[in-house]
């Protein structure tokens, strides 16, 4: 390939340095980047926690809707708070988008990272559900109201008459 192909560079030095000296362009402060990194880490951690919680809640609600095949399915369609799994999925998708910002995302096989992220969330949610934390939270503590709303909330005629 021709390396001798001549391209005359425009007078960047003069133009850009004039802007630098006149403060027309300025450097963003270091804290701006530190804050950016912190927000990215916090955002990813927060999204992961929310995704784990909502996935765990989905498992719990499916279990709470009873074991009776067809009837359970009917109930699922009529009263299941579908926004919970949908929000969990949105959290996972956003988390994956944030993972792309990190250097390791292109140095390793990204699809493997995505698969690892999804599997970790499902396993974490499964463990929380099986430890019985949902039962505890639905009976006492500050989450009780929320859980009751989820279990017997609006539109859930099967449970309201229970």
């Amino acid at each position, binding site marked *: *390939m*021709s*390396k001798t*192909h001549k*391209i005359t*560079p*425009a007078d*960047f*030095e003069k*133009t*850009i*340095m004039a*802007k*630098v*000296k006149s403060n027309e*362009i*300025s*450097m*963003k*402060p*270091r804290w*701006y*980047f530190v804050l*950016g990194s912190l927000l990215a880490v916090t955002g990813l951690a927060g999204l992961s926690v929310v995704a784990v919680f909502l996935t765990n809640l989905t498992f719990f609600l499916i279990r709470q809707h009873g074991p009776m095949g067809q009837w359970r399915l009917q109930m699922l369609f009529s009263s299941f708070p579908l926004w919970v799994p949908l929000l969990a999925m949105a959290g996972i998708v956003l988390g994956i988008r944030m993972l792309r910002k990190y250097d390791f995302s*292109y*140095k*390793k*096989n*990204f699809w493997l990272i995505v698969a690892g992220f999804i599997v970790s969330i499902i396993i974490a949610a499964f463990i929380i559900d099986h430890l019985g934390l949902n039962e505890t939270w639905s009976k006492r503590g500050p989450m009780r109201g929320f859980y009751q709303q989820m279990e017997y909330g609006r539109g859930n005629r099967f449970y309201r008459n229970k």
Partner: protein
Amino acid sequence: MLDISKLSDEDVAGIVRSKDKEIYAEIIRRYQTKLMRYASNIMGDEHKGADVVQEAFIKAYSNLNGFDTKKKFGSWIYRIVHNEAMNMLGKDKKQVPMDDAFEFDSGINIEDEFIKNELVSHTHHCLEQMSIIYREPLSLMYLEEKSYEEISDILRIPVGTVGTRINRARTIMKKLCQKHIK
């Protein structure tokens, strides 16, 4: 007296952000020709390449505090040029579509000396016809003399993908140049 011409790019960047912003001129001097060549190859147009490089130098300056001096400054600034070029190409929608899978048999032996010389003079024309995903790594490898690792850092693709694209680009380049000669 500090001789800045002997300092590494990373050290110069460190001085610009902590002591003397006017030393940024040294970075511009070191990179303007290389970045112009790279940007012009991506854009397929010197004027657009110049716009990309100017914008990239401005962005590099304003984001200099975000540069990690433990990493290569070259890869960082090339990455900024790549991003700027992609933004501009997105705006212009000026990518030349090309069917990379087309087959062509000119019957010409590429190793022939005469053809080699012909290829040199037609290289830029061939490069311009190539799809951007192959043109860019090829240009970084042969014109900018970047390693696979550096290309991976600039394009943010795995090293293995860099190798695959370069091999594919070589094949496409060969076909394009043979077609052009014919």
